[in-house]
């Protein structure tokens, strides 16, 4: 690389080192990144240990239940906890708003899927001290404060003419400034990048995901450094650069990420929890009543069951008919819940697509989506957990229903029929498959960030040319 460019870049570092306020602010932010990473790392480990502890506890409790009727165990249910991804310390995403504990039982889909939190726009909230919050929100502000004078002050104090008189060209000057501030931007992210690198090296997190996460955040930080330098080169006075850059920060980082989900929620309205429950209740009523001998649906079901076993009375069946009815009822209600969940998911998808489309004008949306996808803390990961939990719930309930059908005597079962406590250990347990982000969750966001960097690169060409001449 050109010696002049490198020297100009290094001079920005020396300038920062001798600017007490700038240096203190930079060191504070670097420390904040480090502290937030370590604190979040510990917090994630604590949450994870707690979840593992309670998962073991509730599993043991389930196994230790006394001899009971299997249907009572259907309502005794199981608690499942979603393990946090190893990279969740970087970005807790929607985790805090969605919850990771689900009580699974028969006939009902008790999950965060229908929690109040999910009825509102939850994609872009923040509040915890995580590396994601520091890097996404605070770091751009620091980069602005460090770079808004980078070129404008050269012009204001007259050193620009002197620099050019030494034979430095406009492009060399601009590239040197970009190099210097780009280096500062990367230095700010370094503590988090090192921690991620350590996780990848120790195989605690997938190396590919870590690399993509580092690339995404590096692009985000570089983007702000470049933007600040270019605006500084574009305007005549540094204070104008500051006003313009803070304005851009407020729109891109504060306003759009909050306003867009609200607009999305207005455009595509999600049903409230109570609305959803009423709709489901009505739909369940329409299916039929298994206890009503005249109910047409269950009368037909009974006829099919008798035919399947070649008998004319339920008492002659080799399995308990009530168990079969329970299984059929579960199949029907699960179908209804799944249909309702899919409808809500589709509407949420519409909201997210709307917000995502604006990622091109607010790269924060792109970096946030990328960050949550890669750390496994986004809405998609949560949805994946819900789907896994629901699939498990169905298997779990049906296993108990089948146990009832198979093990409870058809006749002379007594007043309080039960099955042995040993049976509970044969019931399946929830095995969470870690969320794997799809390419569609990664590359469009990286493309947006890359596109912004490329756009700023293109913008720098006329600015650099102008810089070499505008020195009356």
């Amino acid at each position, binding site marked *: 690389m050109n010696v002049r460019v490198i020297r100009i870049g290094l001079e920005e570092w020396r300038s920062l080192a001798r600017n007490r306020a700038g240096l203190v602010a930079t060191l504070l932010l670097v420390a904040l990144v480090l502290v937030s990473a370590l604190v979040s790392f510990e917090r994630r480990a604590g949450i994870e240990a707690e979840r593992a502890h309670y998962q073991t506890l509730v599993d043991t409790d389930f196994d230790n239940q006394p001899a009971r009727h299997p249907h009572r165990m259907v309502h005794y249910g199981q608690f499942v906890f979603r393990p946090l991804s190893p990279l969740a310390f970087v970005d807790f995403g929607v985790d805090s708003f969605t919850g990771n504990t689900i009580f699974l039982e028969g006939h009902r889909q008790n999950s965060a899927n229908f929690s109040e939190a999910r009825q509102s726009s939850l994609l872009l909230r923040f509040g915890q001290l995580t590396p994601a919050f520091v890097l996404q929100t605070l770091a751009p502000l620091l980069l602005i404060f460090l770079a808004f004078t980078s070129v404008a002050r050269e012009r204001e104090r007259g*050193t620009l003419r*002197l620099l050019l*008189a030494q034979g430095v060209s406009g492009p060399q000057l601009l590239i040197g400034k970009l190099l210097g501030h780009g280096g500062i931007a990367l230095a700010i992210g370094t503590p988090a990048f090192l921690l991620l690198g350590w996780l990848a090296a120790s195989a605690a997190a997938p190396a590919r995901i870590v690399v993509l996460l580092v690339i995404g955040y590096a692009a985000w930080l570089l983007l702000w450094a470049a933007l600040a330098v270019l605006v500084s080169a574009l305007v005549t006075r540094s204070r104008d650069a500051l006003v313009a850059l803070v304005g851009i920060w407020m729109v891109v980082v504060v306003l759009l990420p909050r306003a867009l989900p609200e607009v999305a929620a207005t455009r595509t309205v999600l049903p409230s929890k109570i609305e959803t429950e009423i709709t489901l209740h009505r739909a369940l009523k329409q299916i039929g009543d298994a206890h009503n001998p005249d109910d047409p649906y269950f009368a037909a079901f009974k006829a099919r069951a008798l035919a399947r076993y070649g008998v004319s009375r339920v008492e002659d069946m080799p399995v308990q008919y009530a168990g079969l009815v329970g299984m059929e009822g579960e199949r029907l209600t699960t179908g209804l819940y799944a249909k309702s969940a899919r409808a809500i998911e589709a509407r949420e998808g519409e909201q997210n697509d709307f917000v995502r489309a604006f990622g091109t004008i607010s790269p924060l949306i792109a970096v946030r989506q990328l960050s949550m996808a890669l750390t496994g803390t986004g809405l998609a990961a949560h949805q994946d957990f819900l789907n896994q939990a629901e699939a498990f719930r169905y298997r779990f309930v049906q296993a108990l229903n089948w146990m009832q059908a198979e093990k409870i005597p058809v006749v002379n079962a007594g007043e309080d029929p039960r099955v042995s406590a040993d049976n509970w250990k044969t019931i399946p347990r929830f095995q969470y498959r870690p969320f794997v982000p799809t390419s569609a969750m990664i590359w469009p966001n990286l493309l947006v960030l890359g596109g912004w960097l490329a756009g700023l690169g293109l913008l720098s060409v006329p600015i650099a040319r102008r810089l070499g001449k505008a020195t009356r």
Partner: protein
Amino acid sequence: MMTNDAGTPLPIDVREVRHSYGEREVLCGLDLSVAPGEIYALLGGNGAGKSTTLSALLGFIVPSSGSVRVGGIDPAADPAKARAQLAYVPESVALYDQLSARENLDYFLALARAHRSPDTIIAPALEAVGLPQHAWNQRVGGFSKGMRQKVAIALALARHVPVLLLDEPTSGLDPRATLEFNRLIETARDRQVAILMVTHDLLSAVDVADRIGFLADGRIEEELAAGTGSVRFDLNALHARYTGTRVAA
């Protein structure tokens, strides 16, 4: 292009140059040349075109017509090469306040791709301009204008280039500092540097210049050469001429 007797191009050679800012024509057929080892003082009122002349020599503007050459190089066509031939001291000496005198020189010399040995280039240059040694490693943020001027001149001397452009170099300097400054640029003249000094300071021009040109309405209205005797210029006549020029301007 004008050449000297040896056939080499003149360090500063401006011919029939015209330049406008919008509708306003600032340079209207400017002719100006400076030979090696010559100090040329360009005097003129505000808006006469002095700074535009320097900008043309530095390649910051492209004249509408005419020819500008620095050591035979067109600054508009090849600014980097032309700037390698010259050193420039701006009116308000712009230095990096957070750097010491030494560090400023080192930085600018590095950017100029000039030699910048601390012992054989930087220290002798600072010594030559008379900057007290204890100030060499002090940040220039605390320097007086005279001291800053010395650092800028030291930079110009350290570059060892054939052309020196000075923009209002004595503005804001006290008489003693002005005198010191004049002696400094005489040392540069002795090294055969061609010096173009744009100034309002008639006394300084009379003291040090070999030729004085009056710039008015974008061209040299009158040019006077220094006499060979003890009286180099007729100060009273020059003063009357200058103030008249200013009124006319």
